[in-house]
């Protein structure tokens, strides 16, 4: 994990009971997690009355340091011992280390989900809808009678809401081919998970 001096300085300040008493420390820690994980969080997360006595510049610095560290730890899937070692180096006392690790453990899953969802990927199929129709006539060809399917795939794109849907028509045979192939993929997936 690569952490800057700024992060380290911020943590050293956090470690100091003269700058942050127990209560303030806990509040700031929680605010850091909240900023990262709560979609509705904003700057007001640091507006707690029990944090008012602290210099806003210091408050911001420490908040940023904590958030940065949490993200790095999450990215590298840091375990408790890694966390402890770093916090010890920043002069955290035992109590604060325990507090940090507990908060981290409580929020670990959400953090990993958040980090895992960042990044580019192919357009992702989220759903399918279908329609079965019986074609009777067109202006090119009189009287043609045949059933046809219209399949629409709902697609989510990381880049933009372009192409939210892909639609195509197919005959019954073609749909059987499509389903057959998807089933093959599915069985293959099942076998792979049993390895």
């Amino acid at each position, binding site marked *: 994990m690569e952490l800057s001096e700024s992060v380290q300085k911020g943590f050293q300040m956090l470690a100091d009971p003269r700058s942050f008493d127990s209560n303030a420390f806990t509040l700031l820690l929680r605010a850091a997690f909240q900023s990262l994980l709560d979609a509705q969080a904003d700057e007001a997360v640091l507006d707690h009355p029990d944090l008012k006595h602290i210099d806003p510049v210091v408050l911001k610095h420490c908040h940023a340091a904590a958030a940065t560290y949490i993200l790095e730890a999450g990215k590298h899937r840091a375990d408790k011992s890694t966390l402890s070692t770093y916090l010890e180096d920043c002069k955290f006392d035992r109590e604060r280390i325990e507090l940090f690790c507990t908060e981290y453990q409580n929020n670990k899953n959400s953090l990993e989900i958040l980090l895992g969802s960042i990044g580019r990927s192919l357009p992702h199929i989220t759903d*399918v809808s279908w329609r079965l129709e019986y074609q009777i006539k067109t202006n090119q060809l009189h009287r043609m009678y045949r059933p046809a399917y219209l399949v629409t795939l709902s697609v989510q794109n990381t880049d933009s809401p372009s192409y939210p849907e892909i639609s195509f*028509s197919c005959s019954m045979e073609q*749909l059987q081919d499509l389903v057959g192939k998807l089933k093959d*993929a599915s069985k293959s997936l099942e076998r792979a998970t049993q390895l």
Partner: protein
Amino acid sequence: MLLELSEEHKEHLAFLPQVDSAVVAEFGRIAVEFLRRGANPKIYEGAARKLNVSSDTVQHGVEGLTYLLTESSKLMLYLDNRKEIRTILSELAPSLPSYHNLEWRLDVQLASRSLRQQIKPAVTIKLHLNQNGDHNTKVLQTDPATLLHLVQQLEQALEEMKTNHCRRVVRNIK
């Protein structure tokens, strides 16, 4: 599809039934030559003298026969390829892209810039579609749960064809 000839046409061909089969055969031969090499006035004159008719009559006769031959062969071509022609014409209807093929691949994401040590299975799909003769491919991805959902939904779609309701419609609307 019926072969339709104009009145003028019928007139041109009118004299054929009145002559014997050898003459008709000769006319047939001339008509094919005409198709191959274009008109040959000398032959028309020769034939006109032999039959004691004007060379115009001969010319019209040949042209009429030629037309008859080409129309008949068009009909033959149509009859032979009827099924395919109808399929192609039906696809000319205002249409959406149609399914052509599907390729798939299993992937497992192991890490990303923002998160290491992952095991995230995914299915990558290459969907081949045709539209107006153009071949189009789309590369998509889905997760295992959605894949199962897709299979289930589309199997239901296929099942629908076998229901009494659909069978009745297909049987009765022809």
